[in-house]
């Protein structure tokens, strides 16, 4: 006997919609187009001012060339401050963010603790570092210390989130094997979890340092130390040739930091 496998014959086929209802796709497209149009129209660009600005920009860029390296001591000072802020905030941030990450890893923490951990991480992530920097400057005064605290705060969100993801992604089998030997919870952490997480932990730490180095170049704009302060002052004084020199140094540092961090992470992995 043959089995009837198809009770009804389907003659028409349409690509299934990605949305709960078919009309939602086109509606979303239309909505999106309207949204974009509205954005473009409401940007309020004043053509006269732009053309005047372009003329002026030409002069400004003329003034920026060639870059002025005569005040290199100031530059070096700013760079060193940035490096110090980045190193310290990375160490401190990792120290604080690690327990938060363990709290925020679903495979490790009961629901209540998990929720608290996630909450702390969101708190650390929502506000742009420049806003945090403004507040810290108000609290501890101008200078690199405020910047360091700002970056540390950022770590809780950034490092905490990434590390929590790494902990959630570990291989359960390896942990189970250690549990099956009768090891206690501490030993399970040391032998089953830590070896899996450690290389990623080191990699993330380097990555975090790299990010902090970048950020240290901008929070100076609101007085939180580092090379950003030097840059902002030069802009404020219309020293555009010095600004260009600083910008070149920032680009170099960021690229260098990225290269170092990438190379280091590749070696660990």
């Amino acid at each position, binding site marked *: 006997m043959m089995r009837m496998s198809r009770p009804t014959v389907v003659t028409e086929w349409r690509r299934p919609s*990605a*949305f709960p209802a078919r009309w939602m796709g086109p509606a979303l497209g239309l909505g999106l187009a309207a*949204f*974009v149009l509205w*954005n*473009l129209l*409401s*940007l*309020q*660009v004043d053509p006269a*001012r*732009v053309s*005047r*600005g*372009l003329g*002026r*920009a030409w002069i*400004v860029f003329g003034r920026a060339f060639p870059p002025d390296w005569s005040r290199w001591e100031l530059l070096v000072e700013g760079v*060193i*401050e940035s*490096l*110090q*802020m980045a*190193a*310290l905030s990375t*160490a401190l941030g990792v120290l604080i963010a690690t327990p938060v990450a363990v709290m925020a890893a679903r495979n490790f923490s009961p629901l209540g603790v998990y929720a608290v951990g996630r909450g702390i991480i969101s708190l650390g992530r*929502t*506000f*742009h570092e*420049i*806003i945090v920097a*403004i*507040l810290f400057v*108000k*609290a*501890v*005064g101008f*200078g*690199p*210390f405020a910047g*360091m605290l700002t970056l540390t705060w950022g770590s809780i969100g950034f490092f905490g989130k990434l590390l929590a993801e790494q902990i959630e992604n570990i291989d359960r089998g390896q942990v189970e094997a250690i549990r099956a030997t009768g090891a206690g919870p501490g030993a399970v952490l040391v032998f089953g979890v830590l070896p899996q997480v450690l290389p990623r932990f080191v990699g993330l730490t380097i990555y975090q340092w790299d990010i902090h180095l*970048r*950020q240290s*170049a*901008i929070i100076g*704009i*609101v007085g939180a130390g580092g090379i950003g302060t030097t*840059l*902002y002052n030069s*802009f404020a004084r219309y020293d*555009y040739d010095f600004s260009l020199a600083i*910008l070149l140094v*920032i*680009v170099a540092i*960021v*690229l260098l930091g*990225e290269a170092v961090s990438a190379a280091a992470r590749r070696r660990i992995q």
Partner: protein
Amino acid sequence: MRAWRRFSPLQTALRLLARLGAAVVLLWALRGMDIRWEFVSDSPAQMGDLLGRMFPPDWAFAGEVVDPLVQTINIATVGTILAVLLSIPVAFLAARNTTFNRATYALGRLVMSVSRSVDSLIWALIFIIVVGPGSLAGALAVGVRSIGFVSKLFAEGIEEIDRGQVEAIVATGAGRFKVLLYGIVPQIRPVFAGVCIYRWDINIRESTVLGIVGAGGIGFVLNTAILGLEWSRVGLILLVILGVVVVSEALSAYFRKRVA
């Protein structure tokens, strides 16, 4: 009995040395912070005071926040569109399988690096010089800054195109355009769409602060309120920013899941 050591004596010594080195670096960095302890000891009180003044927020001010908020969304959206348009050619140059030669590849990578290594706030400072303060400078800053990120991920998407799938469509006898439509677009579309949405979300967050240097949006009001020491307004603005960031993140997460 045989002994077993995880590390040889040399390794142990090296590990110790590395830790010592790290400690020295950190101490040096700490000295560079020139911490003024009288400020620091005072800071919890200062912070508490600040928070106390921010709450309750000044709800009456809400009406005046709407316009800058809209501007912030404008800046982020226009900036993202700009970035995507500029990123498509850059991505094709910076993807190994579509670039023309070594030089074009290097050019693509260079654009990417420079765009990414300068923060949007610094781009904003530069564009303010060019087009004057306001939203346009902000949108340009966001756009130029995003090129690196967007084109990098686009290029990765392009590099991951599976030749086999393209060949399979070619083998059906389809023409060039149909191969593009059925063999290539389906492979890169989810990546492209996902990246656009993701970057828009990031740009919303970045646009909230551009006003601090004069490039339009809610950051401008924030800065004014801070300079004027109107903390209850600051409280309100921070709440609004929190709301916008949370909503845009949720939207972005929802739509990215849809397009994946």
